[in-house]
């Protein structure tokens, strides 16, 4: 295991052994429930989870990845560890998944920054070591690029659908693929999310601690609201359900899939503002671009023509069709459930 400095633990708290960390600092979970000063950390932890359910990344007190004062830094780590305790106490899988995803995104930013760090070689080294330890990818640096073995590259990129990730569209030399820091981190995004999720799932669930009840209850009710917010209801055809699931898992949905989903929901009279949040987990999410594209499809900008949802036939050719018996006799996903005879 990697030995981490103080600010490294704050950046990558999921690498710390939670129980051990608290013990080393001389704290017990019970104290956090009672001590009014420590209670602030629970508030922070609650906030950290809440933010993740909104598809946002928790904004930390770290300034540019460096904690200004020791206590800020400590609170930072506490809030992560306590967030896990809260999540385990709620037992809500959806919350855990959302949280892990958001934390992965957060760590991604630091990893990318550390990889690109020219002035501090030790930061870069640590990022490289984390990637090696966690995902068994040996990254080396060469001519301002990171290089990874072609076989490693293929094992991770194989699930990406964009053509620019195809090996033929990469710079390949002597058995290595050349990547920028951003691309390197993008390559392990899914694994990073899985790593954090697994870590949380495997963490022991403590018995309820006094002082934790309130935030736990709040999170449970939050998760209920949040579940009804997701628009997967029975009336959607399997292709649309599949697309929504892919996005919820934070995986990449190809452009054609996004087009299908957006045009379908627009045709069902959902507004651009209602649809946009669906794309928040997409690996390459950018709010402005998403709104722009949705408005374009809705015909509220640009040409003014509203795009229609592709036919089942077209979707089949794009591998987006997951027909079930109820799909018989329909030609377009929009007819699903309307023509049952």
């Amino acid at each position, binding site marked *: 295991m990697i030995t981490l400095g103080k600010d490294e633990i704050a950046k990558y708290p999921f690498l710390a052994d939670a129980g051990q960390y608290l013990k080393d600092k001389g704290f017990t979970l019970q104290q956090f429930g009672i001590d009014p000063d420590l209670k602030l950390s629970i508030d922070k932890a609650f906030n950290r989870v809440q933010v993740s359910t909104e598809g946002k990344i928790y904004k930390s007190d770290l300034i540019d990845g460096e904690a200004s004062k020791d206590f800020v830094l400590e609170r930072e780590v506490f809030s992560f560890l306590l967030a896990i305790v809260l999540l385990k106490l709620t037992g809500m899988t959806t919350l855990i998944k959302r949280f892990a995803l958001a934390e992965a995104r957060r760590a991604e930013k630091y990893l990318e920054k550390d990889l690109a760090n020219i002035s501090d070689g030790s930061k870069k080294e640590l990022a490289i070591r984390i990637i090696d330890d966690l995902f068994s990818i040996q990254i080396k640096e060469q001519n301002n690029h990171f290089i990874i*073995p*072609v*076989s490693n590259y*293929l*094992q991770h*990129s*194989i699930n990406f659908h964009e*053509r*620019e990730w*195809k*090996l*033929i*569209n990469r*710079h*390949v*030399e*002597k*058995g*290595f693929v050349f990547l920028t820091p951003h691309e390197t981190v993008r390559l392990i995004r899914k694994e990073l999310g899985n790593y954090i999720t697994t870590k949380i799932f495997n963490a022991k669930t403590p018995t309820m601690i006094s002082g934790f009840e309130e935030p736990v209850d709040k999170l449970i009710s939050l998760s209920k609201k949040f579940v009804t917010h997701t628009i997967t209801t029975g009336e959607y055809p399997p292709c649309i359900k599949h697309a929504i699931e892919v996005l919820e898992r934070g995986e990449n949905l190809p452009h054609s899939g996004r087009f299908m989903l957006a045009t379908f929901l627009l045709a069902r009279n959902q507004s651009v503002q209602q649809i946009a949040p669906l794309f928040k987990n997409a690996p390459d999410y950018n709010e402005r671009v998403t709104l722009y594209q949705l408005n374009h499809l809705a015909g509220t900008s640009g040409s003014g023509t509203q795009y229609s949802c592709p036919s089942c036939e077209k979707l089949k050719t794009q591998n987006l069709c997951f027909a079930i018996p109820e799909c018989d006799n329909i030609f377009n996903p929009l007819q699903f459930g309307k023509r049952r005879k």
Partner: protein
Amino acid sequence: MRAKEIKFLEESFKKYYFDHFDLIHVPKRTSEREFGFQKFNSGMIRHMSLKDNKELHLLLMQNIPSDIYCSNAYYSFPNLPMNEKDWKEADLIFDIDAKDLHLECRSNHCVTKCNECNEVSKLSDYCPKCNSSKINIKSLPCKTCIEESKKEVFKLSNILIEDLGVEKKNIQVYFSGNEGFHVYVYESQFQQLGSRERAELVDYLMFKGTIPETFGMKKLKPNRSLFPEIEDKGWRGRFSKEIFGLKSKRSKIVSELISEGYSSFQKKLIDISTTIGAQIDPNVTMDIHRIFRLPGSLNSKSGLTKILCRDIQKFDPYLESSFLDENTVEIMANCPIEFKIKNKKFGPFDNENTTVPTYTAVYMICKNLATIS
């Protein structure tokens, strides 16, 4: 094939196997491989395992297989059914076949044999005698076929070495015994890759799935400096050499490319893929459970040996892979085209009795163009 021909082929094959054990070895890590074989006029027996050369040679002498195969994959239990074998890894393997190269020479040396009336004619889609469309096409590959296949081998090895970091000593090229070459890559970083990842490698080697942006072309506001240079490594370099030719022509041609536009560029990439990409059979490389003709064994499509090419540049299959003896045999030959083995010309034969050396008799009977008189 009649019993008479089968008996003759089995005798010839048996003699070869007996005389040339030195050419036929079990591969490394023998006990982890799956073996399979076929006898003349019968089905395939798969999912076997062998211990050593002794067991292999015994199998050859006892069964006189028409063809014998071995997996490129390594398994914990090679003799169990496929889903219980426990796949561990597989050597990377490529098949280059002249018939996939769409060469013009092909029509000159392919004959059509009718399944209904046995008429043998020059290449056509139906039998000229009885009009049946139930026909078999037999090719007697020519020098061009072999030379063009070699070019693909060179392209392939170059990309494997330069781009994919394969060591030259770990690449072995075999003549398949019929129309092409099998290229084996041992001990590479790719051993453990599954089928989907191998498919990506295939696309890379074949120059497939390219996007214009990779080679500097953009939909909006193309930028001249993004286009590749002749001295670039990898595909950008190969692309430049093909499209620009000379360094001095780059500037002019980049201007042309930009003015022709994005979709024309896209089309160009597809057009040059067969020229600069290696023409390999994608399915062979992607399949990680296949069995391949064992090096040193005979190919029942020709009676020629699948043999290691030590100097591929000079390699001539009709000299170096024909090991059967010179003893003459009387055959009834029916073959409208001429061919050459061991520097001797044979044919054309118009349904006539003739006396030929054993290696030629086997070649023609394997191609179904002769019977024992």
